[in-house]
Every structure is written in C-alpha cells, then in structure tokens.
C-alpha cells in the first residue's frame, strides 16, 4: 500500500482532504454532526453583521477548537472589500486562513478572477494564508502562485448547482501545471464527483451545499469523506490509462482450446 503524506498549510497537517462549508444548514447542530461524521479538519465560515432583532447562536460554538477555520470573504465585490473582511476576521482571533471569494455577478456567482488576484497579493503581504476561489484559468492560477497563494480553489461548476466537474478539463490543466495544491470547490453534488476530483489529482475538495441540504447531512458528509479518501487512494495508486479497445482480464489461451490451432 502506498502511504499518503498529509497536506500541510501553515505548518498544520491535514490527513482528511474533505473541507466542509457551513452555509445553508438547517440547524447548526447538523454542522457539528457533519464535522464528527466526516472527520473533516477544515471548515469554512463567513462574516456577517449580527442580527439586532434576535440573539443568534454563533456558528463557532458548533465547531470544535481543533478544527482549522477558513474564513471566506463572501460578500466582497472587490479586492478592497475582501481585505476589509479578512482584517475583521483576523481581529476576531480566527482569520489567518482566508478563502478569497470575490463575486460581482448574482446569477452565475462566478468569482472575479482579476480582483481575486489583487486581493491575494494584498492579503499575502499582510501575512494571511490565502486560498483564492477562482474560475479555473491557467494564467490566473499562475498569477496566484506568483502572488503567494497557499493553494488555488477552482470551481467544479456553478456554486450550489450540484452539477459536478463541468470545468474538469480546465481543473486538470491546473493540476498538471501549477505547483500549488488544487482544491476543487463549488458544484460538487454527490460523492462520486468528489472522488473524480481526487482521482484527477486534486489535493482536497470543499463541499457545502450538497451536504448542508441533504436529508441526512451527517450521512452524506461521511459518504463524501469516504469518496475523497477513495479518490485520493486511487490517484496515488496510478490507475492504468483508458483504452479504446478490449484488453482481456482472463487468459484466452492455454485451457479449453489448448493445442488447437
């Protein structure tokens, strides 16, 4: 058996390669249940104004202390807003790992790659560990390497669409060409999508909507975790290439038709 090595960010060793998003859950207790069932070590959270009209439970009360928090900059429409959100997160004592998410478009929710590069440059200079969420584009990914990103996070398909690896070919190019870990984020709808991403050589997968909106979130979180592990193991095992013809898996000679010609 090939032994896997941990994924390391900021000196933190990650042996579980499923990252969990915490949006859209019916109950915050489900978040805790999913963290437990999946064994995830990285959880994303967002920052928002508190609701003045009712006391709210804080999401962090449901996330065990040993979990690595990644604060996303969702709501930011440009690099400056992303920086503002990151600074707020850091001041709260949590925000060293930042998922840069800069979105201007409300229908497709596609990340603004150019502003994301700018935000990454600014955040790296301030000492953040930066995980930029991008549309998979090789030139953008190269710019992010140069900017000092810790990883790149290309979308698999539209956020929340559960459509799987529609952008798979482009993600594959990033995996082949970029030295940084590639973490597939967005659009992963079922565990087989996650397994596929890992088989391609993704370093990790971030899942939110699919798990959060499932009938049994904790069960699906576990299923995703198993799929990520299976896909990772398959990647390391280097499966053989696809053929466009048959290749027998049982011997065709030497038994029934022995000596016949």
């Amino acid at each position, binding site marked *: 058996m090939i032994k896997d090595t941990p994924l390391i960010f900021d000196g933190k060793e990650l042996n579980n390669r499923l990252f969990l998003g*915490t949006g859209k859950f019916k109950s915050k207790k489900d978040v805790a249940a999913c963290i437990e069932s999946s064994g995830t070590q990285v959880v994303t959270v967002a920052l928002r104004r508190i609701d003045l009209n009712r006391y*709210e439970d804080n999401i962090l009360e449901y996330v065990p202390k040993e979990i690595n928090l990644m604060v996303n900059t969702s709501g930011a429409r440009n690099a400056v807003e992303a920086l503002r959100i990151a600074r707020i997160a850091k001041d*709260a004592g949590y925000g060293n790992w930042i998922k840069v998410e800069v979105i201007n478009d409300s229908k497709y929710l596609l990340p603004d790659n150019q502003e994301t590069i700018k935000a990454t440059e600014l955040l790296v200079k301030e000492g953040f560990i930066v995980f930029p969420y991008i549309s998979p584009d090789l030139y953008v990914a190269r710019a992010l390497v140069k900017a000092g990103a810790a990883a790149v996070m290309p979308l698999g398909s539209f956020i929340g669409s559960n459509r799987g690896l529609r952008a798979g070919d482009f993600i594959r190019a990033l995996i082949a060409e970029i030295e940084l870990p590639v973490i597939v984020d967005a659009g992963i709808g079922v565990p087989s999508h996650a397994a596929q991403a890992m088989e391609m050589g993704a370093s990790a997968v971030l899942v939110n909507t699919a798990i959060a909106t499932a009938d049994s979130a904790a069960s699906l979180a576990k299923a995703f975790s198993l799929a990520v592990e299976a896909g990772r193991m398959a990647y390391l095992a280097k499966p053989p290439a696809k053929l466009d013809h048959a290749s027998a898996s049982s011997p065709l000679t030497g038994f029934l038709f022995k000596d016949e010609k």
Partner: protein
Amino acid sequence: MIKVTLNGEVKEFSDNITIKTIIEKYCRNSENIVAELNRDIIKRDKWQDKELADGDVLELISFMGGG
C-alpha cells in the same frame, strides 16, 4: 441623545454610550464579535472606554455559516 447607524439601522442612544454597552444589549455572547467604528476596528479592550458620537457608524460583526 445621539444618532448612530448600527448595522445599517439608524438608532438613538443616550449620550456617552460606550461600545461595550451596545454590545451587551445586542449580543448574547460577545466572544466572537468584532466592532468596527467608522470603518476602523476597535479592539476589544477599548470597548469599555470608547464612547460613541452623533453620526457614528458602528458595525457589529460575527461569524456565520458560509462556504
């Protein structure tokens, strides 16, 4: 009385009210709250002394679920 824009809503408060008093009023638990006054983050240890002025814009921010 002074008028302060708190999380986007204009509200009236008594003169000399501090950030700490406002946070105690609106937050069940102040542990993960960040206070931003006129775009500047006010450190937790300053909440008690920081009095608000008429026209101030105060944002109280916390962590929520998010992908």
